[in-house]
């Protein structure tokens, strides 16, 4: 029986794969169907995942095991229910309280975390002696790293109109950003091509058995 269900699973996967690929020709009912099924499955998957990985261990299991000992957990549960009040326009204002607590906590945590990891650590890593490297390309690379970081940060300084020398510095910053976006773009294309190869491998191998 498992074998039959495995085969059915492969055919189901092949059907959905072809439905999505049919969009390469033009928008059609098969693609629209598969797209909506994906939205539904995706939403349900994340809901089930959140229930089992966050809600059950952090709230329901603790309350079920020792209600009086964990009675304080009724506060976030109540705040969570207040969050759901956002659904109705008349009770929407109630959701401001849990949102304020979430936003306030996130702001406090983010401020400290980003100050350490994204500002201080990155600045420290850039403050190097570029000439301490062993090879010429490394020395050039270190110089590029320092110049690129300074010019890149300067590009994001929008409080003053950039003209004259500052415009030139900003321009160099843009060049470095473009190189980085190019590298990111290259990796994204490769990742997508890799997924495409995976799907073709599935269709030609697992489904049609044309390749091994």
């Amino acid at each position, binding site marked *: 029986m498992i074998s039959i*269900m*495995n085969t*059915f*699973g492969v055919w*189901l*996967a092949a059907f959905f794969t072809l439905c999505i*690929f049919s969009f390469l020709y033009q928008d059609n*009912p098969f693609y629209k*169907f598969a*797209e*909506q*099924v994906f939205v*539904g*499955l995706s*939403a*349900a998957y994340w809901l*089930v995942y*959140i*229930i*089992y990985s966050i*809600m059950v261990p*952090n*709230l329901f299991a603790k309350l079920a095991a020792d209600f009086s000992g964990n009675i304080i957990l009724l506060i*976030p549960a109540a705040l*969570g229910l207040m*969050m759901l009040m956002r*659904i109705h326009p008349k009770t929407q204002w109630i959701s*401001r*309280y*849990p949102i*304020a*607590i*979430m936003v*306030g*906590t996130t*702001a*406090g945590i983010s*401020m400290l975390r980003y100050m350490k990891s*994204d*500002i201080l650590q990155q600045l420290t*890593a850039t403050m190097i002696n570029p000439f301490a490297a062993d090879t010429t390309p490394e020395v*050039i690379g270190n110089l590029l*790293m320092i110049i*690129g970081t*300074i010019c*890149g*940060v300067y590009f994001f300084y929008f409080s003053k109109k950039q003209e004259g020398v500052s415009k030139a510095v900003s321009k160099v910053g*843009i060049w*470095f*950003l*473009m*190189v980085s*976006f*190019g*590298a990111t*773009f*290259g990796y994204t*294309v490769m990742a997508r091509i890799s*997924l495409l190869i995976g*799907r073709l491998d599935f269709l030609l191998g697992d489904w049609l058995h044309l390749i091994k």
Partner: protein
Amino acid sequence: MKSSAPLIFAFIVGIIVLLSEFIPHSPFNEIVSTLEGWFMIISGFAILLGQISLIRMNTHKIVHKLDNWQYHLAGLISFGLMLALGLLWGMQETPGILGDATGIQAWLGQKPFDYLFENAYLPLSATLFSLLAFFIASAAYRAFIIRGLESNLLMITAIIVIIGRTSIGTMLTGWLPESLHFWHFPNLADFIMEFPNTAAQRAILISAGLGIVGSSLRIILGIERSYLGGDK
């Protein structure tokens, strides 16, 4: 009161979290870990809110028979099916309301939720994202090619990285002598990733970090209040 009380809440929790960094002693440690736990639970409800909104939107389209309502019905059915399977028999090692579905597992080879995940969700997800390969390539070609130095810089870097990170790069420039080793495509890609790319990423991180610090301060002090929405 409806809008000022939440601002006071945001200020208090924000200040407590900030103080805990500078006073790493009781009771600040406990308060912050409690707040972080609460944050997780409330965010779980926030995700539930998103799903309820999705159901409402789909139901509205189906009830009023708006354009393409049939597809939204399919989406709603798939949502209900996946959710029901997950809640009834659980996922992976986690049992559901009705247990571990041992009988069904003997028949399907795995839990129903995992079966649907593997044979419907994963293929759909991978194929949708692989489809982007075609559109990214064509859109990038139209948007960037021969539009100026910056756009060419982007495309040339992308091409070097793609060639350098695949076997074709080794094949194309593998014959270069040792003195020109730097110009070997994989080495060139490594250099780009290690230096100019890192420099730009650092610039982005530092600038975004400064922006986040500023925004966080504005939120804690109640200057930024757009997250509260309209005054309804």
